[in-house]
């Protein structure tokens, strides 16, 4: 009896704690979801409903035609812009993952003169704000005659990203050295050890790098705005500006276009969420 007593007393308290915890989580989640919800409902509103007071939390009636109209909107060739975005994000992600994995592995697992000094210098570059080097970088690309192309946006990704190099190095350091020794005894060379032993082991971390890079590039507005000149080259992030003119803004269609811009990312996250969460857990984000 005495053993059961405290358990019985504790149960309602535990239940209450669980309810409060979940209520708090739901409230925060709702708050975070609100802008997305607002984008979703605005995408199905008419211009009148957009500016209606009091605010309409659900379009009445929903303007389903927006979903089609946005695809024919002049100045917003969705499929072309989506293709550009996929190209841009895909190439940057590929370059970042490849270069950062190679650099991180080299800093963690290979022995070469000046390795630690160069690693310290790489990490030190994190202290320099990107905007501070933007103008000189732009001037270099301009001198090379490559502004107006994707080269300035894509090529730097193949030269590594200091933060991801640092992160992947820590992952590679976590691999027991005996695995590499075993592979050497099995006749594997350094490249094969990197590709067939080290990379598969840090796969969750590579997926984290890939997802973060894709997210960042997908939403990147500043870089493409500065370097690209031909609207036919724009990614979705810059293309969205087609809905703003000097006199008016097509808010409903702008929201529909924003929805179409976001959906592929939602899809990507849904597909990679397992890996992403595992990687994030290992990376202690």
């Amino acid at each position, binding site marked *: 009896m005495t053993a059961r007593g405290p358990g019985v007393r504790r149960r309602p308290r535990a239940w209450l704690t669980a309810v409060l915890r979940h209520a708090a989580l739901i409230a925060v989640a709702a708050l975070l979801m609100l802008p997305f919800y607002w984008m979703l409902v605005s995408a199905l509103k008419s211009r009148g409903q957009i500016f209606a007071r009091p605010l309409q939390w659900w379009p009445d009636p929903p303007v389903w035609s927006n979903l089609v109209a946005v695809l024919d909107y002049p100045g917003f060739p969705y499929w072309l812009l989506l293709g550009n975005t996929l190209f841009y994000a895909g190439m940057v992600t590929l370059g970042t993952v490849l270069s950062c994995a190679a650099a991180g592995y080299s800093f963690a697992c290979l022995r070469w003169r000046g390795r630690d000094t160069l690693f310290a210098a790489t990490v030190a570059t994190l202290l320099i704000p990107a905007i501070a080097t933007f103008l000189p970088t732009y001037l270099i690309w301009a001198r090379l005659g490559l502004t107006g192309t994707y080269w300035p946006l894509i090529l730097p990704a193949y030269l590594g990203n200091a933060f991801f190099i640092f992160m992947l190095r820590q992952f590679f350091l976590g691999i027991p050295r005996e695995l590499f020794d*075993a592979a050497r005894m099995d*006749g*594997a060379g350094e490249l094969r050890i990197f590709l067939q032993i080290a990379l598969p082991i840090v796969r969750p971390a590579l997926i984290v790098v890939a997802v973060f890079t894709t997210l960042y590039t997908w939403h990147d507005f500043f870089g493409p705005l500065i370097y690209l000149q031909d609207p036919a080259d724009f990614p979705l992030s810059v293309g969205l500006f087609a809905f703003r003119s000097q006199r008016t803004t097509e808010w409903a269609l702008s929201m529909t276009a924003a929805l179409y811009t976001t959906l592929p990312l939602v899809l990507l996250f849904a597909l990679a969420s397992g890996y992403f969460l595992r990687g994030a857990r290992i990376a202690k984000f």
Partner: protein
Amino acid sequence: MATLSLRSLSKYYGAVEVVRGLDLEIADRELAVFVGPSGCGKSTLLRMIAGLEEVDAGDILIDGRSVVDVPPADRGLAMVFQSYALYPHMSAFDNLAFGLRRAGLPRAEIEARISRAAALLQITPLLPRRPREMSGGQRQRVAIGRAIVREPRAFLFDEPLSNLDASLRSEMRTQILALHQRLEATMIFVTHDQVEAMTLADKIVVLNGGRIEQVGSPMEVYAAPRNLFVARFIGSPGMNLLPATVFASTPGLLAVDLTGEAAASAGRILFDRPAAAIAAGSAVTVGLRAAHFAVAGPGAPALDLSVDLVERLGDATHVHGRLGGAARVTVALEGTAPARPGDRIPLTLRPGVGHLFDAAGQAVPAAGARLEGTATSW
């Protein structure tokens, strides 16, 4: 299989010489065990043989051919690691096949070799599993399987049992012995556990500070330790080492007095037929294993043991105590001796036992030690 020769082998980490000019011969089909305390260079030596560490000086010969410049995979050796080192993202089958694929073997040959090794080690049901889905013992067997499928000239084991619990360790030890007999392979086994060394080895190589202290069969090393380090390291419980002074030295007989605290106990120990004369007054060390003692009969010369602690092992009783009040010794008595803490036990020495070490710590072979009786006259 293979013979292995190490010639004046040295290795430096910076200015520190971790392997110091070693010479060693390992015969074909021999199971040699490198044993020594942590940091003695045994794993480094094994890795040098494997080709995973560069050789700074000297030579390594396998079947008479120098392999110092040969890559690890081409030396015809296979290694089993302490942490098993199984590739975590591959199944057991792929772990076993990885090296064979690198060697360009046909698929049918790979499957045949894996099938044979799996049957030998009883790991066939484990082949589709990944390492994280196996227990420690199963992983160890797969790791051994990975070495076997390569059909190497010699096997290298780097403390492969260290991560296993006591019962599994004993079981795996037996399996490795059985494997050695079955494969008739040359094997080198590294361990810091002298029990493992004693039970497995055809030849024990005792290492300390990058040097070989003694090479020999387990019983040679146990029964005739070359110096104090080997005497201390080999055998469980460790040898009792008692400081003493030479009282008299005559041809065929050496008398020593226990010095320090032990002197108060009984005193004089006689060594028959010592290999060298040692001047009276010289400092020496008397080495007595726990099993060298027996309870003295009434009236016989005896060492006086004050009992501190008693460990009953079933077939023997380990009695820890002090001779003459301070010199700590461990005594192994047969059966369940009725000793209790606080007891005083008169001890004598069994015939033909005991070791003597000179002031430099080197063994002075003798026919055996005995306590001085009334028959001796000086």
